[in-house]
């Protein structure tokens, strides 16, 4: 048995790590799945306005059971609430808000991200599978900053941060940061830069896991 000298960030700890970097006053879209957890960890005292692609700005937490309103749902089709000051708008305005660069941060899940920020998160390209893209491509290229939140390694232990994505692309050079259970990395035109890593994981070990050079 291999005894590891470090501990991975749990899903909650990862969400907390992402939330730390979301500043007061920002407009943010959290993608479906793991990124939605980030909303629970925004530090007290920071006012962050959440956008939902289906036409909501100022989205609040889930309602209490029995208080659901199925005209008020998020992109993942779960019931949500609207904060005082929130607004509704139609789909073309919502995606215009995204594409027009008005959102500060968008947090997405991913299958793969390249060192220079190419994103693959909509299709594994498996033959016979039914393709579905939703708002992934619009979100990837729209916000001022696109962040990815994912496990660094696949279940098989392969790095999801790669030199070049093998899965179909969602967008080119659009990811600025990758938050993972082992490290936080920045994608630059020159490749990866380290932002932080879990205690006990040394730099060489991280580079070996990723299989790519990572600038300090």
């Amino acid at each position, binding site marked *: 048995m291999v005894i590891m000298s470090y501990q991975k960030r749990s899903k909650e700890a990862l969400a907390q790590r992402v939330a730390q970097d979301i500043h007061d006053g920002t407009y943010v879209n959290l993608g479906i799945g793991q990124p939605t957890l980030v909303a629970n960890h925004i530090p007290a005292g920071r006012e962050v306005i959440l956008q*939902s*692609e*289906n*036409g*909501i700005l100022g989205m609040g937490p889930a309602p209490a059971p*029995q*208080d*659901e*309103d*199925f*005209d*008020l*749902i998020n992109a993942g*089709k779960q019931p949500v609430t*609207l904060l005082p000051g929130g607004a*509704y*708008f*139609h*789909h*073309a305005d*919502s*995606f*215009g808000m*995204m*594409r027009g660069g008005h959102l500060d941060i968008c947090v997405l899940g991913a299958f793969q991200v390249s060192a220079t920020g190419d994103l693959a998160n909509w*299709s594994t390209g498996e033959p*016979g*599978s*039914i*393709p*579905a*893209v*939703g*708002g*992934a*491509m*619009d979100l990837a*290229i*729209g916000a001022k900053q696109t962040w990815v939140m994912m496990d660094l390694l696949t279940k098989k232990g392969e790095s999801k941060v790669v030199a070049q994505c093998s899965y*179909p*692309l*969602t*967008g*080119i050079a659009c990811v600025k940061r990758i938050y993972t259970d082992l490290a936080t990395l920045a994608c630059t035109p020159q490749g990866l830069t380290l932002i932080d890593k879990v205690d006990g994981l040394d730099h060489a070990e991280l580079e070996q896991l990723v299989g790519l050079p990572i600038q300090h």
Partner: protein
Amino acid sequence: MINKIAASVAEALAGTPDGATVLIGGFGTAGIPNELIDGLIAQGARDLTIVNNNAGNGDTGLAALLKAGRVRKVICSFPRQADSYVFDGLYRSSRIELELVPQGNLAERLRAAGAGVGAFFTPTGYGTELAKNSDGSPKETREINGRHYVLEYPIHGDLALIKAERGDRWGNLVYRKAARNFGPVMATAARHTVATVHEVVELGALDPEAIVTPGIHVSKIVKIDRVATQAGGFKIAA
């Protein structure tokens, strides 16, 4: 006198031709005009092209229209869902054509149709599989001020079916919460727009500052009683 209030769904949908392109509003449980989709099934038009964010789920609504064999092609952003088995079956056996469009491009192509825009360059989808035409050839692209864009064309509808909350006899509409979604853009993009509302009010009763869809974009309104269903936007009964 202008009176866009139709007595029934059947009256509002009469004359829908075979081969029509039908824009259908809705996202998740919100804003799906279920009564109009049922009406389209009863009306009988075939060989339809359907534009919707999804491709139907379960056995009702859009899935029932697909199951009835009335749809030749679906243009949508997200066909695959946990219970989209009707679409999945038709797609896998090549009995339905799919044009997959990123959601924002779908909304903007509808907006362009309504606004008389001939085509537009968008950064969404550049360098991806979805920047290709159905025959696999690349879509036209252009570099503008150092950024890459794909040329996308409008989606015009012959008919739009949408769900609103309140309307008047001139066809002015307001919506409810996130049930607005594709309704306002689809209303502008179709030659003929039919909207359901839960309430018909007198002219002047809708605040002119708050009307979302001006009546010029609406052909018929059908009043549907609010039912305590999920899609009706009511709380689920305890």
